[in-house]
Every structure is written in structure tokens, then in C-alpha cells.
């Protein structure tokens, strides 16, 4: 299985453990990730907030460059996915815009490759049985709550409903295959506060705090997510919440289940250290 790979800025920085674990897991599962050559930032919330042209042109450059690989573009970050999906949708639905962009980048847009999120690929292109067959250390007894946030599954006009926008199931399916015990909770699709992380930390503290509290109420051992910004917000805004809840990327848990080397380096990056919990569960 070959995919064009768009890591996005955070996987080289604040979410470096997501980057490491993604690459390790994909390698172990025989997923060939071909990184887009010289990719640029998607523009994130800032571009679409301030400049509608940049908001589409920046990710379009990446879409154009990804065509060289000739496979679906996989990205671990939900926010990057949102921008790529918006840019791809615009290229497909607005021919005047497509012509303008084709001239801008001197490239024809074929549209054969579609932007997809990493969890979509891991949960849908790989059967749960195939995944389960590779599990070496089942995550027995690990109570997880899956957290999707917003842009992974919304808006349906752009995601084409690859998973249900109100009640997504893909992460639970993966976690079950890993032997974990996904728990139902109410906060799977609530917003963490997203880009207000720094400028309105008070809002993020309220929103993320509510989600983390929800995980505690569900007696979950950890929150499982698939977005660097969500992870950072949930991981960093736990003041006053007890006990603190580790927030793990789904690829990190896959790394444990597949018994991949070098894991401790990933967990050291977390603000809420997951290692005591993992130790307790015999999963370190």
C-alpha cells in the first residue's frame, strides 16, 4: 500500500511523537509513505481567517506536488486535512479557479489522488482482522475514549462522510482490533478550542477541560486522538483536573500493540506522562 505523505509542520515539532509513531507504525504495517517533496504549510486557521486566496492556494501547491506520487495523500493532522479537503473540493467544483491554479503552478490538476486522514487509511484500508493479526502485545484492560474533535470528520460536504460526522466509529474499530476496550462517551466530536490555544487560553481551558473531565467520568485510562492541535490542547489544559488523563495518539497505542522499538522516546514528549498509566496496565 503506497500513499503520498503530508506530515504537516507540527509533526516535525510539537507533535514530533505523532510523526515518529506514524512512520514506525506504517512501516510495520507495510504502508509505504512517500513524503511530498518540499511540501509547505497548509495555512491552517490563520490563512482562512485572514486571506481566502492563500487559504486555498497554499494547500493547492501541496496537492499539485503530491500528484508526482500518484496515490492518495495521507495526513495525520485533522487541521491539515480540513484545508487540503477544502482546496481539493474547490479544484473539483470551480473550473475557473482550477484553471487559475493550474497556470499558477504550471501543472495540470488530475485529481486522481484524494486527501485522506491517517485514521481513515489505518481503519478502512486495513481490515481489523489484518491489523489484529499483527498485534503482539494486545492492549488488554486498557479503557480508552476516542476523541475526534472537529475537522477529522466535519463538514460532511468536504469529508464525503468517510465516517459518521456525529458518531464516528473508525478509532474504536482500530482500538478493538488492538485488544483495547473502547468506552462510549459524549465528547468524541466536541471542539477542544483549536487555534485559540494561545490567544484565548481561557476558552481552551474550559473546552478542553470539559473533555478531559468527560474522560475521567467515563473512567478511561487515556484519551486517544488523531490531531496534533487537539492533543496539545487536551494534554496541556488539565489544570485542576484529577487524576490527569494521558492523551495519546492512536499511532502510539498501535506502536505498543505492535511492539515497535523506540517507544519510550515518544512518551517522553507528553506533558501528562502516560508511562505510569502504561506501567500500571503492563503496557510500557
Amino acid at each position, binding site marked *: 500500500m503506497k500513499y503520498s505523505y503530508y506530515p504537516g*509542520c*507540527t509533526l*516535525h*515539532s*510539537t*507533535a*514530533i511523537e505523532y510523526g515518529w509513531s506514524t512512520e514506525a507504525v506504517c512501516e510495520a504495517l507495510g504502508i509505504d509513505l512517500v513524503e511530498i517533496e*518540499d*511540501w*509547505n*504549510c497548509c*495555512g*491552517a*486557521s*490563520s*490563512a*482562512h*481567517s*485572514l*486571506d*481566502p*486566496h*492563500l487559504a486555498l*492556494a*497554499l494547500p493547492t*501547491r501541496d496537492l499539485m506536488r503530491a500528484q508526482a506520487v500518484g496515490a492518495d495523500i495521507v495526513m495525520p493532522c485533522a487541521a491539515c486535512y*480540513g484545508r487540503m479537503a477544502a482546496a481539493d473540493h474547490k479544484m473539483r467544483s470551480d473550473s475557473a479557479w482550477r484553471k487559475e491554479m493550474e497556470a*499558477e*503552478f504550471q501543472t495540470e490538476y488530475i485529481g486522481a489522488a484524494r486527501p485522506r486522514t491517517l485514521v481513515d487509511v489505518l481503519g478502512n484500508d486495513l481490515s481489523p482482522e489484518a491489523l489484529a493479526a499483527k498485534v503482539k502485545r494486545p492492549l488488554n484492560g486498557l479503557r480508552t475514549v476516542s476523541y475526534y*474533535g*472537529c*475537522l477529522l470528520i*466535519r*463538514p*460532511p*460536504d*468536504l469529508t464525503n462522510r468517510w465516517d459518521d*460526522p*456525529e458518531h464516528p466509529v473508525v478509532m474504536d474499530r482500530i482500538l478493538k482490533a488492538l485488544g483495547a476496550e473502547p468506552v462510549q462517551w459524549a465528547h468524541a466530536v*466536541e*471542539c477542544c*478550542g*483549536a*487555534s*485559540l490555544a*494561545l*490567544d*484565548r*487560553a*481561557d*476558552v481552551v481551558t*474550559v*473546552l478542553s477541560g470539559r473533555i478531559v473531565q468527560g474522560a475521567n467520568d467515563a473512567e478511561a485510562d487515556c484519551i486517544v486522538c488523531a490531531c496534533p492541535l487537539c492533543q496539545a490542547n487536551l494534554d*496541556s489544559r488539565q489544570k485542576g483536573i484529577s487524576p490527569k488523563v494521558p492523551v495519546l495518539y492512536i499511532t502510539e497505542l498501535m506502536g505498543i500493540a505492535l511492539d515497535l522499538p523506540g517507544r519510550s522516546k515518544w512518551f*517522553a*514528549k*507528553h*506533558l501528562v506522562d502516560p508511562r505510569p498509566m502504561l506501567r500500571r496496565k503492563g503496557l510500557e
Partner: protein
Amino acid sequence: MTTGATASLSSAVRTSAASTAGNAQRVDPSFLPTVEALSHENIRRCYYCLKCTAGCPTAYAMDYGPAHVLKLVQLGQKDKVLQSKAIWMCVGCETCWTRCPNGIAAGHVMDALKQMALREGYAPAERRVLVLHRQFLTSIRLFGRVHELSMLALYKLLSGDLFTDLDLGARMFLRGKIPILPERIKGMSKIQQLFAKRPRGQE
């Protein structure tokens, strides 16, 4: 769009706080059609069911919920809308669009309103939000990718918000999550060309 119909709006509608109906604020006639054109959203379809507000994660911290913003746009209340906190508090989570019975993406309207506010010189009600967005884009303009360290430093400096989350930043830094040196892409000339382009319709 409807120049005729809306041209007459200005002479007809004034609004104000209830007590001062006499010296009500005048309305920019082109407001509604302009916002519709910029956002590509059909705001007239809103019948104000409030489902967007009810589900909006940040509405509690807004001065007007998203439904109110749409209503004020319908009523041509330009100043109120462009001076509002609401437009800066929207995080673009697309929850409103997902659920709206009339298919309106209120978040896209919020974006159009932010851009309009900037272009027309309205002071942003949430200045720090704007500063962060700007530093984020600056980072892309300089490197093609975001470099957190320089972006955050500039943000702290420009927003005046020097002390919040310093410990958090330090913890992140210590865990090696914030690289010191930026990654700079090769195709910077194209990126800078894109930045140099004024978006159409916004000159």
C-alpha cells in the same frame, strides 16, 4: 447582486438600543450582498433557528452567537458586526455548517467578516487573535512552514501578552517539542509570490 433593493435600505432602516430609537445607527447598503459575495454563503436562507449557536463551542465567549451575527448581517448592522468579538472567536470547527438546516456555513461568514473588518480598518475586538494569525502567516511567508519558536516570540512581543503560559512554553521546550531552528522549504519564491497576490475582489 441586488444593488437596487439594498440601496434603499440605508435611507429606511436605522437601529439603536431600545431607549434611543431616535439617533439610530445608519446602515451600509451593500453590507448583506457584500458579505454574501465574500463568504459564498446564502445568508438570506437563515430563518434563525439558533441551531448553530446551540452547538457552537465558543458561542459562550462571544458577544453575539453565530445566529445573531447572521441576523445582524441580514439587518445590515455593519458596525455592530465588524466590531464584535464573535467574528474573532470563531475557530472554524464547521459544526454549524454540519448541522444547519439551510446549509449555511456560518464559519465562512465569520471569516469573510474578519477580512472585511481588517480591510475597512475596524479595530479587532480580539486583538491577540489577530496578532497570532498574522505571526502564523508571517512564519509561512518566511519559511514556507511554521516555526513555532520565532512565531511565539513575535506573538508574545506584539500581543503584549508576555506572561501567560510561559511555564507551558518552557515545558514544551524542555521536552524538545519546539525546535530552535526553522525548516525552510526550497520553493520559497512561489510561496512569496502567493503572498504577494491580493485576493480577488479585495483590492
